């Protein structure tokens, strides 16, 4: 059983999707339990395989049994799990379970009788994301990228907002071009190395003093793969599809896509950088780290500033995602000799997934409950929806980087990387974006606390009887959200804090995983 875990992680949601597809349309009520059970199985398997990795190092699983004894390396498809993607897997499983709980009633309301299809797509999306994370085959990665992309196009276009449909169309074009670039890059690599297995490619590229690695087409391959992934993760100049797509999608879709898609793409980029090309090749031979870090700096600043210009809550969050992607890409490219930037970037993948989830769930509740799409509509929300706002605050504080949330610690390690590698512009950008985030979120808190137009002169009211206050202009009928949406919100908020407080062990795991990768390059 235990040796099948790597396959089960991916297969459990797949079978779940099939069951929902077969039986869901007969009775919508079976959808949710199936989703939950299959994701729980995935989570269990991820935890199991993660423990194996911690005990005995990276785990390989050869699909169809074509391992190196029976055949040559790369004949079959290999799944490979090390400590880093073990962590990412757990995050994906937890996030998707939380979102599925969030969607219990939401999905039905937002998808008008297409609930089973929604859940099929939802599960296939997780299949794609899990698959992208575990696979060690460059082409298989492409197929799974397409699984996740196709489902996310549909999840976005399912919404009723017509702007969401247009955004989905742009996303299809951009996403397809991105995936095609990736495919092309893999093709160039295949042409030069004759294999698709990531480990094998790395072996070929570094063999004999890295002579094959120095050829121009390998460089072009890297650029193509990188650009393809940058489109997928909405890195700065290529982010155009993201804000509208995520903000006008149905809230359940937005909640699963925003935390996972960009982060997993970043993970894939890191995996390609370290696992396929290798530290030495990327930072030693290519040596573009300065340019990319500058690009990341621009991404961070542009994302933050554009977020500042938004009047709609969800769009603002989407631009923050663009900034956060800049954090991660920049961190991964800092190339300080001890890999602190890389550590920070990987930790930020985990942290940002939960931060984003927290904010998106809270924002979805607010948008739905009080029809408050714009920030100005949030007046008096602290009074009306204290629990939701608590979740929102925790997510926001994590975004700003206030201890003890995880956002603080990831920033901490990223800044350390920036200092050690001498990229002061990156440090400055991180701090500036923290400040901008602070302005952004406190603008919201202020509105939520004071109401849109604060009362002239404070009221000394009759004790507790007028606890409701005179601040809100909204109808007082707005009440706290329902439990099925609050539970995931609060759990996420708790994770945001716990992940921050217990960053030590997580960082230790990440460090132990990336130290050998750095050492190989020297």
């Amino acid at each position, binding site marked *: 059983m235990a040796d099948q875990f790597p396959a089960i992680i991916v297969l459990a949601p797949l079978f779940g999707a099939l069951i929902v597809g077969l039986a869901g349309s007969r009775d919508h009520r079976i959808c949710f339990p199936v989703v939950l059970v299959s994701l729980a199985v995935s989570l269990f398997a991820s935890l199991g395989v993660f423990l194996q990795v911690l005990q005995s190092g990276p785990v390989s699983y050869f699909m169809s049994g074509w391992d190196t004894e029976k055949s040559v390396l790369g004949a079959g498809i290999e799944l490979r799990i090390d400590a880093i993607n073990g962590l990412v897997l757990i995050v994906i499983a937890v996030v998707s379970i939380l979102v599925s709980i969030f969607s219990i009633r939401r999905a039905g309301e937002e998808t008008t009788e297409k609930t089973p299809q929604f859940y099929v797509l939802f599960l296939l999306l997780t299949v794609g994301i899990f698959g992208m994370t575990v696979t060690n085959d460059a082409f298989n990665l492409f197929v799974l990228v397409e699984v996740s992309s196709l489902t996310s196009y549909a999840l976005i276009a399912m919404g009723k907002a017509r702007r969401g449909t247009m955004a989905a169309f742009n996303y299809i074009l951009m996403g397809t071009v991105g995936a095609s670039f990736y495919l092309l890059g893999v093709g160039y690599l295949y042409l030069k190395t004759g294999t698709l297995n990531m480990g094998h490619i790395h072996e070929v590229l570094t063999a004999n003093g890295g002579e094959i690695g120095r050829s121009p087409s390998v460089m072009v391959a890297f650029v193509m793969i990188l650009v393809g992934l940058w489109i997928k993760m909405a890195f700065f100049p290529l982010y155009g599809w993201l804000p509208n797509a995520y903000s006008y999608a149905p809230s359940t879709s937005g909640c699963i896509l925003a935390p996972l898609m960009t982060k997993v793409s970043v993970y894939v980029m890191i995996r390609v950088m370290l696992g396929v090309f290798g530290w030495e090749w990327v930072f030693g031979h290519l040596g573009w780290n300065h340019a990319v870090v500058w690009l990341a700096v621009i991404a961070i600043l542009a994302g933050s500033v554009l977020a500042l210009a938004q009047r709609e809550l969800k769009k603002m969050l989407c631009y923050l995602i663009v900034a956060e992607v800049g954090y991660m890409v920049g961190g991964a490219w800092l190339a300080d000799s001890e890999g602190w930037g890389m550590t920070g970037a990987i930790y930020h993948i985990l942290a940002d997934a939960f931060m984003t989830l927290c904010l998106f769930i809270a924002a979805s509740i607010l948008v739905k409950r009080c029809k408050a799409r714009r920030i100005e509509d949030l007046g008096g929300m602290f009074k009306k929806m204290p629990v939701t706002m608590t979740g929102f605050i925790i997510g926001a504080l994590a975004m700003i980087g206030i201890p003890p949330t995880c956002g603080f610690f990831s920033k901490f390690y990223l800044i350390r990387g920036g200092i050690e590698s001498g990229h002061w512009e990156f*440090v400055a950008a991180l701090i500036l974006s923290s400040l901008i985030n602070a302005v952004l979120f406190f603008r919201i808190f202020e509105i939520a606390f*004071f109401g849109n137009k604060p009362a002239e002169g404070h009221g*000394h009211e009759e004790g*507790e009887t007028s606890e409701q206050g005179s601040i809100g202009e909204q109808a007082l009928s707005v009440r706290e959200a329902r439990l099925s949406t609050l539970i995931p919100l609060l759990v996420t908020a708790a994770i945001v804090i716990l992940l921050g407080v217990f960053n*030590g062990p997580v960082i230790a795991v990440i460090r132990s995983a990336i130290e050998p990768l750095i050492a190989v390059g020297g």
Partner: protein
Amino acid sequence: MTDSVNSLLPVWACLASLLAVPAILIFRKEPFLREGATFVAGLVKLGFVIAIYQHVKNGTAVECVLIEGPLPIVLRVDALGMVFALVASSLWILTSLYAIGYMRGLKEHSQTRFFAFFAVSLFATLGVAFAGNLLTLYLFYEILSLSTWPLVTHHQDKEARSGGRTYLAHLLGTSVAFALPALIFTWVKTGSEIEFGKAILESGDLGPWPTVALLLAFCFGFSKAGMMPFHSWLPGAMVAPTPVSALLHAVAVVKVGVFCVIRVVTEVFDTDLLTQAIGALSPSEILAWVAAFTVLVSSLIALTQDNLKRRLAFSTIGQLSYIVLGVALLHDLAWRGSVLHIAAHATGKITLFFCAGAIYVATGKKYISQMRGLGRRMPITFTAFFIGSLGVIGLPPSLGLISKFHLVLGAANAGQIALLVVFLISTILNAAYFLPIVYQAFFPKSDEVDPGEAGAEKFSWHSVKEAPWACVVPLSITALLSFGLFFTSGFLQELVKLFVASH
């Protein structure tokens, strides 16, 4: 170096007030139980602090590692933290008592929220006092900034909004922009070493200019200390209800700022680093002159303020810089004076704020020019005000005398005559902006005992009585405390000696 024992006591001392929050929320419909919870928590907290004191007075630090790892979270109580913890936890009880009287007297809204965040901010204050490394210090510092924001903006009106904005923009902005990079830089520079207990940055680690930059980044980053030019949040935060102002300006927030500065100067930098020469000055002297500038300018501004609370606010800015200045002198006696001044200023200033609040509750007056003759109607309040101002000016009989005496001696022994003069001038200024208030309150010219300007509402002096007992009792106690500590300051001095000896 002192010994240390492992104990969970610091954790409980911190948590005592945090655990009161659920109780406060549960009893939101029962004001008596709610405030009861606050009190119980306060007493429990004080009890824990005193229990820790039993260890600390023998020169043993109490330590508790909450989270291990490259970024550990550690609580560690030494003598310096103890002084601050004693001040904060004892004054919290009085402030709560006062808050009850004040809030009920004015029938304020959202009292539950008020008490809840009050408790949270005390949790954070003790956290800062007990922080065992820079990261923990920063963590609780930020929690404090955030948890006091709803208190500052309690009134939820326009004024509160702009005051709150200034407040957060300064505190959060500077801490993220200066303190955080400085913290991370220190962490990187020393290879993940941020524990307090010995100097984090040893001599030779940094050149003179980076030292200055780092020192100023820390000191401006912890802008709760109110050093110019990052001081303007303090007067802005005056929009808060008076108990909050008392808490902010006397106990928790500003003292946390100077406490952080003391920690940084004494624990982060080796003395050698701070005395490297840059031209004619050394890093510590640069800090000292920034502080001296703040002292003088803020005292002068205070003279011109008519709003009592604003005058108190500028006075606070000056007094805080005394403490910073004392620390920057890098002399044993001056350090002792600085730490003692935390306690001295806390008791004195809290009395003054309580009085200002009591006057407002009783009469609705905010401006000094309107208070002529009021002392005859509210004798207890104004007597307390007098005692409090003695403490802040540094006249006998008050703890302020002892602390200022040490500061001045320290300046003299350190050979900084110019700074000595600054101390003296500012003391005169202090007297100049406090004593006339008292004088006018008790000895008004007869024609001035008249209602305010034309058009103002009719105001009868004869109906004025003392504020409710819940206001008057605490301010009497703090006044007595300020007075009494002059005679019984022995235990504080012992602690301070321990602190100085450990460096």
